[in-house]
């Protein structure tokens, strides 16, 4: 009953706020607001509907244990439907509610908010979204990719191919990518590595929405006959690529996918785990349920008398949501500690984020080292391969061709 009454008071209060405007969010004592943008209904809903519950669950876990350094966390989630104007509205809303940080969602949305984040001095994280050059903390002081950029993934993919093939000299590598800016982004890295490693690179673009790539796959398998394929696809396209490659008899053990072509659901939609034997993918968060933090979330649900949410079964995206939430909480924890327990401002949280180091959550999070200059944290990935009907880790956290990526970052910074 009290909950009912309190909620109706909330309705009245919000109506009053709306009516009179200008009302600041009534910040309660010992509560911090996190903003989270998500896409649960737009074109990337297959990711958002799993990733965002992971984020919410981790925050609920932290709150159930008394919050972070005594501060409860309130998550304000806004669905931007992968559209840009709602993303701006969401950011302004977070700012109004006094959010200390925000999770961004989507590449064009991140691009549109970079400048605003800097002006408003609120840090935004864009794991797996946005531009590679945002790793440069001097250029984009309030944007934090916190996960391997497409450049780092390109470097890692070539390093993995080299490990598989022995030497890359004279070998042929095909790059199958979604024909949008995100898909084209790794090209400078791949082209540079092709020169230094001495392999031949040919690119095959798949036009949106990426559901039809028969011609490209036929071109790759029938005419080009590469030694290795690197794929960088989104949405339903990864499933199609697995199915088509399998159909043409190309060995999937010579394929590695970027991070958005790597979920269990992508592989299952291609005909099941059994079909995709050998298919390798890159990951920026731990995969599977065998982590203490996930066990704690399950225990939290059990204590409430509820079954664990079904999203937990889709571990690739769910774990990424948990990872983002964990890094947010860790940044805030650093900020509160640095201030000796006082409530941190968004600028303190930025410093807290830049102090994250050696926070691995039992192998769940890569050995990130965020610094004021490096907001990517090193560009770590893991490689997981489908073996015997499930994803198996074949290569632990590593940085592929880091020097090449740093060279490009420096050149890009000099250009701007």
């Amino acid at each position, binding site marked *: 009953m009290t909950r009912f009454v309190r909620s109706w008071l909330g309705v009245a209060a*919000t109506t009053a706020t*709306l009516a009179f405007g200008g009302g600041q969010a009534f910040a309660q004592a010992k509560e911090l607001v996190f903003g989270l943008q998500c896409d649960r209904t737009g074109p990337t809903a297959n990711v958002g509907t799993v990733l965002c519950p992971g984020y919410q669950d981790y925050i609920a876990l932290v709150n159930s244990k008394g919050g972070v350094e005594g501060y409860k966390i*309130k998550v304000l989630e806004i*669905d931007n439907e992968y559209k840009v104007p709602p993303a*701006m509205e969401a950011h302004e809303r977070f700012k109004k509610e006094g959010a200390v940080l925000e999770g961004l969602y989507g590449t064009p949305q991140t691009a549109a908010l970079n400048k*605003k984040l800097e002006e408003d001095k609120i840090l935004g994280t864009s794991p797996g979204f946005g531009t590679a050059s945002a790793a440069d903390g001097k250029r984009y002081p309030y944007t934090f990719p916190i996960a391997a950029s497409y450049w780092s993934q390109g470097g890692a993919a070539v390093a993995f191919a080299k490990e598989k093939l022995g030497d890359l000299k004279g070998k042929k590598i095909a790059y199958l990518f979604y024909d949008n800016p995100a898909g084209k982004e790794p090209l400078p890295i791949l082209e540079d590595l092709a020169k230094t490693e001495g392999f031949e690179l040919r690119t095959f673009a798949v036009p949106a929405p990426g559901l039809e790539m028969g011609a490209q796959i036929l071109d790759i398998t029938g005419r080009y006959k590469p030694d290795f394929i690197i794929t960088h696809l989104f949405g339903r396209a990864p499933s199609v690529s697995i199915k088509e490659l399998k159909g043409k008899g190309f060995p999937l053990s010579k394929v590695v996918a970027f991070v958005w072509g790597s979920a269990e659901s992508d592989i299952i939609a291609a005909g099941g785990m059994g079909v995709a034997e050998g298919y390798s993918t890159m990951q920026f968060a731990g995969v599977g349920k065998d982590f203490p933090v996930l066990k704690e979330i399950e225990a939290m649900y059990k204590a409430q008398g509820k079954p664990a949410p079904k999203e937990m079964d889709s571990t690739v995206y769910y774990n990424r949501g948990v990872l983002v939430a964990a890094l947010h909480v860790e940044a805030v924890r650093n900020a509160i500690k640095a201030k000796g327990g006082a409530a941190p401002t968004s600028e303190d949280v930025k410093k807290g984020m830049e102090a994250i180091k050696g926070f691995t959550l039992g192998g769940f999070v890569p050995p990130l080292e965020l610094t004021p200059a490096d907001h990517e944290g090193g560009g770590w990935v893991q490689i997981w391969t489908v073996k015997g009907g499930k994803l198996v880790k074949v290569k632990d956290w590593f940085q592929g061709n880091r020097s090449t990526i740093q060279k490009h970052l420096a050149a890009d910074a000099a250009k701007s």
Partner: protein
Amino acid sequence: MFHRESGVFKTTYGADMALYPLPIAKWTVVALAALFVVIIPLAVHEYYLSILNLIFIAIVGALGLNILVGYTGQISIGHGAFMSVGAYTAANLAVRLGLPFWITLPAGGLMAALIGVVVGMPSLRIKGLYLAIATLAGQLIIEWTINHVPAISGGAQASIEVPRPSLFGISLNTQGHLYFFLMFFAVLAIVATLNLVRSRIGRAFVAVRDQDIAAEIIGINIYRYKLLAFAISSFYAGVCGVLYTYYFGIANYEQFQLTVSIDYLAMIIIGGLGSVLGSIFGAIFVTLLPIAIRIFMEDVGSLFFTQAEMANVISGLRLGVFGGLIIFFLIVEPEGLNRLWRNIRSYFRVWPFSY
């Protein structure tokens, strides 16, 4: 707008076409100006200004599309692409040549108008669904070109960061500054459209829409006016794209894809085809409704759901309620919100003595 005579007393064309049908209408405009220029910026939190800013930009785009679709009867699904033409023209001029917004903004509009005329060429021979497909082709070609020509797009990311507009040495970088910047152009667009549609050109557009053969027989050069409609409409779209670019600080073609064209079509259909007020209503409705539904449900939903559950419920319900309300309004009044507004007004015209 909010007032009416109790009957029709006009005896001249001049009176019928007047911008201010009654002397009191001037005072309404003065009151609205006071509200938007003085009261709202002073009394309202920055967050609400940011929503108004999005509405102002949408109004410019919706007006442009309404001139083409509503007034001239030529369907276009390429509106988003024309916005991107304006956006990239302005961004290139602003970054490479360092030009200020008062040059890049009309330049973006003019470039969009030029491309709009080219994409509009098929309208000389086809209409209806055929034209819709031809303009769809225009949308896709423009998207592809921007994505693949680095000279336009500025590199693999296909996005160009632009500096904030500045006026008299002041950088317009807060929502409050941008509020006045964007409102100025929204008002300019509204006044220009009001005057356009009551001029010879506007009458010719309506004649072409209602029956193009009849229009040709009474001496209207329909080729010229169809292309002019495309040019003017694309000019608005280009300006809208430039405003988006300055508002977000970046030109990125992924902001202007096919779904944006559809969104703008939805605005003018919900608001009312062939009316200036309808474009404004539509822009407000489509921008504001999802936000209003969410804010409402954040409070009501907390009666039934936990914080984590609610995120999912809100996203899903919001789409459902949004779609449902569009259907509801279009069933109540197929000609859109503008007609609904006029019906309400004419009901009260002779109230309480209606029969």
